[in-house]
């Protein structure tokens, strides 16, 4: 069962200096902004961050980079119109970049969570991003060996959790959440709302609670707002309700 905490500061306490942190989100969708704010306040530094982007605007990961807490970013798409904090750090030689094709990034995370020691992918074959990597021809097609990518801590965002740690997401904010949840030693989730166990339809759970270690509630869509109808939320019996 996951630890439930009301404090985002307590939620991110597992991140230490030098940790590798997996951060969910594609652009701002699904980015766990409040957990990253808490990480900023924690003072942890010398971090390696794995995320699709390298921060947008003046929020979330962008601020962590602005404050030079991030030693290295492993991502697919750092350069954007509003990635000025990354651009400045990179231009000054104050951040290391490992550029990974987006599908390889997702699959390397998935491999880490699934206990796979590496995989051969056609993506990137013959390009400079595969330079120096082992290649192999399999059934007439060329592939590149890629390795799993695991984190010390994953920070992700979901819509609802129950007290068993089961998660459902919202629309395209799901993105890297499910693969990152499985790929880190400790997975921390910020959710809009924590529901009693039994409230989520088992058929509709996207991330099973086994992958979730810490849950904290951050109502970003307006505190006290009525929960949005979601197909995973069901009526439940009193016996099914745990932790209400």
């Amino acid at each position, binding site marked *: 069962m996951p630890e439930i905490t009301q404090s985002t500061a307590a939620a991110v306490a597992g991140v230490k200096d030098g940790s590798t942190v997996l951060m969910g989100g594609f652009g701002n969708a699904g980015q766990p902004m409040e957990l990253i704010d808490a990480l900023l306040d924690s003072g942890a530094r010398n971090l390696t961050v794995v995320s699709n982007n390298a921060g947008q605007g003046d929020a979330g990961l962008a601020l962590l980079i602005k404050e030079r807490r991030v030693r290295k970013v492993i991502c697919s798409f750092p*350069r954007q119109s509003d990635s000025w904090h990354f651009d400045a750090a*990179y231009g000054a030689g104050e951040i290391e970049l490992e550029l990974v094709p987006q*599908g390889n990034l997702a699959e390397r995370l998935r491999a880490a969570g699934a206990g796979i020691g590496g995989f051969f992918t056609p993506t990137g074959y013959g390009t400079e991003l595969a330079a120096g990597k082992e290649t192999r021809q399999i059934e007439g097609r060329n592939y590149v060996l890629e390795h799993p990518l695991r984190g010390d801590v994953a920070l992700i965002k979901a819509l609802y959790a129950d007290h068993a740690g089961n998660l459902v997401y*919202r*629309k395209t904010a799901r993105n890297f959440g499910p693969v990152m949840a499985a790929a880190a030693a400790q997975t921390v989730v910020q959710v809009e709302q924590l529901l009693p166990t039994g409230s989520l339809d088992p058929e509709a759970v996207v991330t099973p609670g086994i992958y979730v270690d810490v849950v904290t509630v951050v109502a970003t869509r307006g505190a006290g707002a009525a929960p949005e109808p979601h197909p995973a939320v069901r009526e439940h019996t009193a016996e099914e309700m745990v932790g209400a």
Partner: protein
Amino acid sequence: MSGTGTRLSRQELARLVARDIAPGSYVNLGIGQPTMVADYLTAEQHVTLHTENGMLGMGPQAHGDRIDDELINAGKIPVTELPGASYFHHADSFAMMRGGHLDVCVLGAFQVSASGDLANWSTGAPDAIPAVGGAMDLAIGAKEVFVMMSLFARDGTAKLVPECTYPVTGLGCVTRVYTDCGVFHILEQDGARRLKLVEPYGLSADQIQDQLEVELSA
């Protein structure tokens, strides 16, 4: 074969690509010019759009109170969902791409080689910040890769080249090239890949051949 009419505008090019997408296809439209293709797909084509950040059944861009910051496309533009849509995580999204389940992917390009190598992710400029996103996955994943680009760069050099001089995104992956001056198919013939001009626009086939360093197949 003589040139018909004038060079194609970007809109006409998008219309041409949309025309050539088979009914019932699953399609990924890359960021930039390829997104215009969506405007010319007809309801009768029943095309399902994939966006690599985790959705099939993507609808048009969202406006006004339909904007939802958790429903965006790969270009981070707010979009809508159509009936029959589905959401999935990134590893699934790229698995369906890499696994060859998408029928067509439409991409922009800096250069395409005569054998179908694609260069569209980096100009190789030493001071640029590199970014690749899903470009390399898209290039090698779909059954057909259509490129939309102008045939000539601003400095007049052809973008259909014997060998890419920009860093490549994928090798031998492009099947068709839609340009303002004509549509080219890259065909497997006798174990080699050949470039064939199928529809010239604004210039005659001979004029196009004269300005390319690659040999067009008959």
